[in-house]
């Protein structure tokens, strides 16, 4: 246990150093921008991983919470002139409340049915973003979201925003790591392994599932907030069914029940389209193929999959 903790501390220390190093040495604004997007996607993947990887509950509608975070801050800062720093907790709280209300009936479902329930919820929210044009700007989107500022520091420059996003990522990693290593984390994994047994040993599975659902919604909303103030313009397409699926894919490809897997998955799914631009019109075909191939050959995600291959190779060498 102690070993585990010191190892974690070292990991996070190295991780922080890497962030600082990257932030100060990378000059190319395009790279900084891509890394910032990776950070936002990591938050999305991390939140969903808590729900899917650890508690074993699938969601095909999480882009809704991403959208609630983004639209929440857009509406509050533009329509109500609220400071973004007040809009942040408000948007997160809104996502959490929605998650709580939707979670109560939805989390009673399991398997495909849970997938469908969350899918339906995500679609409805997305349609609301599109149709409630007086508030959300409708299909053409919401423009004029303000820049973040904190006293004299403006987060308009790439470097500052990079640090802001990755600061949130680091904090979120530590929060999730702490949850996973605690009584709550064990109970979550217990639900994953067997819900019946978990409740038979005293875990209030309904309450706990609801708690992680709300927690993961909070991370998604945080990502939505950061996204909105980075690009200043949001439209419903960003929070569609495809976006929900992309989040699920990040989790599964990176590795379920792995915090670092979220980082890996988010990185790959952010970078992949950038690389695929080279394929121009073959982009979608190649993207779809890669998804299928990874899932067919490494169904437990890249982190686990590569570890498995490594272990197998080691075993062969032994004999």
């Amino acid at each position: 246990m102690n070993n585990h903790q010191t190892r974690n501390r070292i990991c996070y220390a190295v991780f922080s150093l890497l962030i600082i190093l990257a932030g100060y040495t990378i000059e190319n604004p395009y790279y900084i921008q891509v890394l910032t997007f990776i950070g936002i996607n990591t938050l999305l993947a991390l939140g969903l991983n808590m729900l899917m990887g650890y508690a074993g509950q699938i969601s095909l509608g999480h882009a809704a919470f991403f959208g609630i975070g983004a639209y929440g801050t857009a509406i509050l800062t533009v329509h109500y002139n609220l400071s973004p720093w007040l809009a942040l907790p408000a948007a997160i709280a809104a996502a959490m409340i929605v998650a709580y209300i939707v979670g109560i009936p939805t989390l009673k479902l399991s398997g495909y049915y849970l997938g469908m329930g969350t899918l339906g919820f995500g679609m409805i929210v997305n349609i609301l973003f599109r149709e409630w044009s007086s508030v959300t700007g409708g299909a053409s989107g919401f423009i004029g979201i303000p820049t973040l500022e904190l006293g004299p520091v403006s987060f308009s420059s790439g470097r500052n925003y990079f640090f802001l996003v990755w600061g949130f990522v680091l904090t979120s990693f530590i929060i999730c790591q702490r949850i996973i290593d605690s009584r709550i984390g064990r109970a979550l994994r217990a639900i994953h392994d067997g819900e019946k047994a978990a409740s038979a040993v005293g875990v209030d599975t309904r309450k706990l599932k609801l708690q992680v659902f709300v927690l993961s919604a909070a991370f998604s909303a945080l990502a939505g907030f950061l996204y909105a103030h980075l690009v200043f313009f949001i439209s419903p397409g960003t929070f569609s069914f495809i976006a929900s699926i992309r989040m699920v894919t990040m989790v599964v490809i990176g590795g379920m029940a792995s915090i670092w897997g979220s980082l890996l998955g988010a990185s790959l799914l952010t970078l992949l389209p950038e690389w695929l631009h080279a394929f121009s019109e073959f982009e979608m075909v190649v993207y779809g193929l890669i998804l299928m191939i990874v899932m067919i050959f490494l169904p437990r995600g890249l982190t686990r999959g590569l570890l498995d291959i490594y272990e197998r190779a080691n075993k062969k060498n032994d004999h």
Partner: protein
Amino acid sequence: MTTELPLLEIKTVFKAFGGVQALSDITFSLNPGSITGLIGPNGAGKTTLFNLISGVFPVDKGKIVFSGTGIKNKKPHTLVDIGISRTFQNVELFESMTVLENILVGQHTRTRCGMWGSILRFPWVAGEEKKAHQFAMELLDFVGLNGHADKTSGDLPFGWQRLLEIARALASRPKLLLLDEPAAGLNIVETMQLGDLIKKIREQGVTVLLVEHDMSLTMEISDWIVVLDQGEKIAQGTPRTVQADEKVIAAYLGTAGKKTED
């Protein structure tokens, strides 16, 4: 036996699944500190009764009273909290977790650290964790699994998995322990050790309700036997009187006869 208040009372309990009457008009009670054997042929309704007592399903009719309070509408986790703990006929461990972690989850109702506690790491959390670890180690010692704390539970041999499941059930410090066929799949030596373990559990003051097909084990360690057949209670008494009961013999021979036929 004594005038003590019973720990668990089953009062005219009925349960049906669709058309199948799984239990009808079951009444009996458990004295504190006793080992009661619940026996009966396949499909008699033993596991169903366990599911009712542990709150998995609601009872259709009748009442189950634990320590003087009715358990109606109580959820399984609340029942663990008030002192009812169980194992499953087909071992249900948290297979991806270690032996130690399984027992730590077993202490869920006896520990408090919640979402905030784990994120903010309040000072008392570390103390609670440490105590939980200590107790888990004691339990591993108690069931004879010391030294295997860090193994993945799914990788354990089957007999050990049974022991681990019992240890996990004891982790909630229950007053009543429900064991569903704990000897199934064990060899003779393991079964004997299991018998000793159950007696040791009773010595700790835990009341045991035991469903078991291994008659020699059940008859040896039980103080009291309740016999179910096709959802009805057909006999109860001390092991000796039950063994001599004609209805019981008929029930077992009957099903044995049916089995040889097909």
